[in-house]
């Protein structure tokens, strides 16, 4: 069953056409990699799938929510079911790890609720956060300042935030951009494992073709805002994608 549906979507920013007539469906629990050269529209596609931007034309639906008639409340509700992992992880460096993780539930809280979560999270919430962090291998860092953690540990904290959010879809924008080759495999293993274990739909934008082929059954290739292939690409298609 398709939970993310893109129909003839185009997106332009001023005179720049970032996406052109993109059409694709992503089913629940599917693991998809989006690959392509820098500036090909990967981030724009992920932002659209996360309902961050309205498309310039075409139809977009996520988790049963049709973006052609968006209501503020409905939009927030559906966003609370989608986890975004930006390139820089989007963590607040001078907050404790637990505080960053509880922020995953902002979509289900109002302003006062968020302040309460930050300052006085309940015992139940704290224990839930600890379990998730422990599962991610950083339980011991729960009360440390986030900027005192290593890059890899911070990446796990950001993933814990989306797990705490209870996201049904995880959209990760170039999660390997600042990761060394040895750790890149660990990160993808962790994401793919969580996706399989918890039935989370995973969409990841990547530059590393070999890793995309190894970990993802479906690969979408983007070139100059257009979908060049969708599935398991051949070597020739990959060469065309990067103009090799």
């Amino acid at each position, binding site marked *: 069953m398709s939970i993310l549906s893109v129909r003839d979507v185009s997106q332009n920013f001023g005179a720049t056409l970032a996406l052109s007539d993109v059409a694709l469906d992503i089913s629940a629990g599917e693991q998809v990699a989006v690959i392509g050269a820098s500036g090909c529209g990967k981030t724009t596609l992920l932002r659209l799938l996360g309902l961050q931007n309205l498309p310039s034309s075409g139809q977009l639906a996520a988790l049963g929510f049709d973006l052609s008639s968006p209501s503020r409340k409905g939009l927030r509700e559906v966003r*609370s079911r989608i986890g975004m992992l930006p390139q*820089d992880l989007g963590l607040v460096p001078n907050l404790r790890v637990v505080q960053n993780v509880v922020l995953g539930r902002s*979509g289900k809280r109002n302003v006062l609720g968020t302040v309460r979560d930050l300052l006085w999270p309940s015992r139940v919430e704290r224990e839930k956060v600890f379990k998730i962090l422990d599962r991610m291998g950083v339980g*011991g860092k*729960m009360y*440390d300042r986030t*900027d005192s953690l290593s890059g890899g540990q911070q990446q796990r904290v950001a993933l814990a935030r989306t797990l705490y959010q209870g996201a049904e879809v995880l959209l990760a924008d170039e999660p390997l951009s600042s990761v060394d080759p040895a750790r890149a495999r660990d990160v993808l293993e962790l994401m793919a494992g969580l996706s399989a274990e918890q039935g989370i739909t995973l969409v990841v934008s990547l530059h590393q073709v070999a890793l995309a082929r190894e970990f993802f059954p479906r690969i979408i290739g983007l070139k100059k805002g257009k979908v060049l292939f969708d599935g398991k690409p051949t070597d020739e298609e990959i060469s065309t994608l990067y103009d090799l």
Partner: protein
Amino acid sequence: MWLGRRWLVVALGVVFFLCLARLGTNFVTHTPGSDPWASTIRFFSGAISPSLVDQNPSLPADADPFLSRLGDDLLRTIRYALIATSLAVPGGLLLGFFVSEQWWPRNGARVLFQLIRWPVRISLSLMRSVHELIWAIFFLSAFGDAPFSACLALALPFTGTLAKVFSELMDEQNRSPRGVITAAGGSGAQGFVATIFPMALPDMVSYALYRFECALRSSAVLGFIGVETIGLSINRSFENGFYGEVWTALYVLITTVILIEGLGHMIRQRMMSGKVRTRSSGLSESELRKAAPRDLFLRVNGVIWVVVIFMAFSIGEPLVTPMVEGQRSERISRFLTKLTPDPIASEKSLLNWDARKEAWSDGSDQFVPWLADLWEYPGQEALINTLAMSVAAIIVAACLAILLIPWGIRTLANRNPLGLAMSRSSLPGVMGSLVRGFFVLTRAVPEYLYAFLLVGLMGPSAWPLVLALALHNVGILGRLWTEVVENQRRTIPSTILEVGGGRFQSYVAALLPMSLNRFILFFFYRWESCVREATVLGMLGVSSLGYYISIQQNFREYDDILFYTLLGAGLVVAGDLLSDFLRHRLRGENS
């Protein structure tokens, strides 16, 4: 048209000579027959023999001892600064929040937010552009209560400054964490509260502490218009020639400011770094929580600040003096009548609209000529003098600072500059400490105090005021510029040392060009403040806007004072806009 930073430096040189032509070259002016050197020597000999007892032989026997009076004055100075800062910080936070764009939604409602933002920005600009001394003159005349008026006079411009800086700090924060909150269904306001505010908080606390330091200096300066702070002690002792007392008070003030600066530095460092705990594996959630790293220093400091602020409000002389019923409202009404431009003022109650309309219809045709007269003389001349003094002062300060900082930069002024072994001599390190000490001392004394002392020694001309502004600003520019150079990447300047060059070559050929843009940014930031200070320094008897303000204060001509104040405010706002423009252009250039 923007011609670049080289032309900017050349233009500043030309402007300095124009200022010199305007202000003249009579650096010292004394009445015939006086012996300025004798009083100067006597004044500076007080520096090595500060007095711990009263120098005034005619004081009654039961008078409080000098040190006890000085202690009381210092406590009052700190109290007013504390109250003002504790009022200005929440005010600045609230207004800064309205000016910041970080919490705005991304849809069409932004137009509505712009409608809120601009009136707030204009109000902030007005609050900042009027000096606290002038606010104090207005408030003392209107309300009469010295403590309340003094605190309000300090709080108002400080709120404007804090709001501006707070909003800039919020706007400069990384927006990605906020994006994660909105992506997860949170609102812009939630994103602001949970991400932008905590990220900006260490810088905001740091800046608030710096403003407290400034409030302390400004509170002292209020003594020069009669408010009982340490400035009043200095004023009285200097005028009576008790220079030993003057120096004791100066040392006490400088020490207090330096201590506050040191405390602020420690708090800033603790907030920025945070404590790291290493052994944490195998612990349960509750054990981890108990063992969580907590900074006792910051916590104790927080409690102390809250207690001290509470004490400032509740202990000591009442902030508001009790008055007979109706006396206060009558006083305010009289002040507002005097504040109304003379041709359209009405002696009857301000709330009597018929009387006001009548006064307006009678005097409206004389209103513009009244303005034109004030502008023609002395407004125009005072305005140009104020501008010339501020420009000359900041250029002198910049020249001094640029010459001194190579000796004060921590990364250069040691045995191993930029990490390369150079010599075994400890002289560079000693020089570095001396230069940085000089910067600390010069910025610890407020401009007005320098000006007061220098006018007493050099006679009433523009140059003591220029020198006073320059002295204070050389300390601030020295500190800011030194930090800029210390934060530069070391690879390029160390190349010069690696091929046999010296420290000074490394500074001139690499560090200075790398830092020049940031230098110019800070230069204009300080020039804005020089314009504001130059406006009031004239109150010491030199022909700038402040001079005419102090004259009219004697005659209680508040409408004229308002005119000069608005002229000064206009100059500050123009300086602010020019400085914003140049900063914007310089940010676009590679440093």
